[in-house]
């Protein structure tokens, strides 16, 4: 199976090199594609120096557009699995096999690394945890399946989901909404327990005001999906 790691990056020059390097060590058979989302620092150079392929977006388009670029690449070059890993170092590349396995064994179409299934590690700030819990509750009701960490950006997807996301992927805050999309397309979601760290460099792109907007927008989008036409799957 051909596996592609997609690392969306916005100003992550301090950490992206390490992330690429340790991913290569953890899973040498994997190809690595860094999407440089209009960074103003040397992210692209650092990623290329570490041995990754780098796609450069001409300006900052947001994580949704960046990730979809990766899915389009995965689809165009016939990859079987795409893995999303954040460029800030909060995901442990050593755990990438954990989220790959269910897809390789055909048990799931998307696997999300969850920091809330149990175990230690960095669990975000109290305010954010509250927000994540709210999303988890809403999604659990909507999908009829217990989901604990819908905002996690550490995930692996199989071919069907690659095709789905290449067609349609939310633009602004895609993690939560994309899970609902997968569910509506009648594909299987699974969570695996992972341990996350606090980011090793750079700054989070989410400010308090953005967080409030994020909550309102994502909740609204989730409910709009209820009255919307379902996403169409390619045969």
């Amino acid at each position: 199976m051909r596996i592609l790691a997609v690392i969306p990056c916005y100003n992550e020059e301090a950490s992206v090199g390490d992330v690429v390097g340790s991913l290569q060590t953890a899973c040498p058979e994997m190809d690595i594609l860094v999407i440089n989302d209009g960074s103003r620092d040397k992210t692209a150079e650092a990623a290329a120096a570490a041995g990754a392929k780098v796609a450069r977006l001409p300006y900052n388009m947001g994580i949704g557009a960046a990730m979809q670029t990766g899915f389009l690449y995965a689809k165009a070059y016939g990859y079987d699995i795409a893995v999303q890993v954040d460029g800030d170092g909060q995901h442990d590349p050593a755990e990438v096999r954990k989220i790959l396995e269910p897809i390789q064994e055909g048990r799931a179409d998307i696997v999300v690394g969850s920091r809330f299934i149990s175990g230690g590690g960095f669990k975000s700030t109290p305010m954010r945890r509250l927000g994540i819990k709210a999303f988890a509750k809403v999604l659990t009701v909507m999908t009829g399946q217990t989901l604990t960490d819908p905002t996690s950006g550490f995930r692996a997807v199989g071919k069907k989901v690659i095709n789905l996301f290449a067609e349609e992927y939310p633009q602004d805050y895609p993690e939560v909404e994309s899970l609902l999309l997968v569910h509506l397309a009648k594909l299987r979601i699974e969570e695996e327990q992972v341990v996350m760290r606090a980011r090793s460099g750079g700054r989070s792109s989410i400010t308090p005001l953005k967080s409030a907007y994020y909550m309102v927008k994502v909740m609204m989008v989730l409910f709009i999906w209820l009255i919307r036409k379902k996403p169409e799957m390619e045969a």
Partner: protein
Amino acid sequence: MHTRAEMIALAGSGLLLLVILELVRSRRLKEKYSLLWFFTAVVLLVMALSRGLLDKLGHMMGIYYAPSAFFLLAFLFLMLIMVQFSVVISRLSERNKTLAQEVALLKLKFEEEISSVKAETYKNRIREGNSG
């Protein structure tokens, strides 16, 4: 008189809400740009439904004719939406320019590569022709 104006305001803002909802549902309007419209429609709908609230708001602004207060409110929200549009259009035109420049430079690079490859093949052919 007032009741007829109230009915029109109610029907108008209700229709606005439905239209926005349908546009978002059918994905002709992005959620991002629908938020302000939703907010506007809901506020106007509430004002149209509750005469007391509208009167209170009107008095706060020094307007004692309720329909005027309603129009002013609608006007202010429309202004807000227009400003949002202007900001979005500005960003779009900037990005459009960047994209066109990027394409132009890529095209140039591509043509240069092609012509250097062509020149290389041509040279090779001459060399082969001379030796053969």
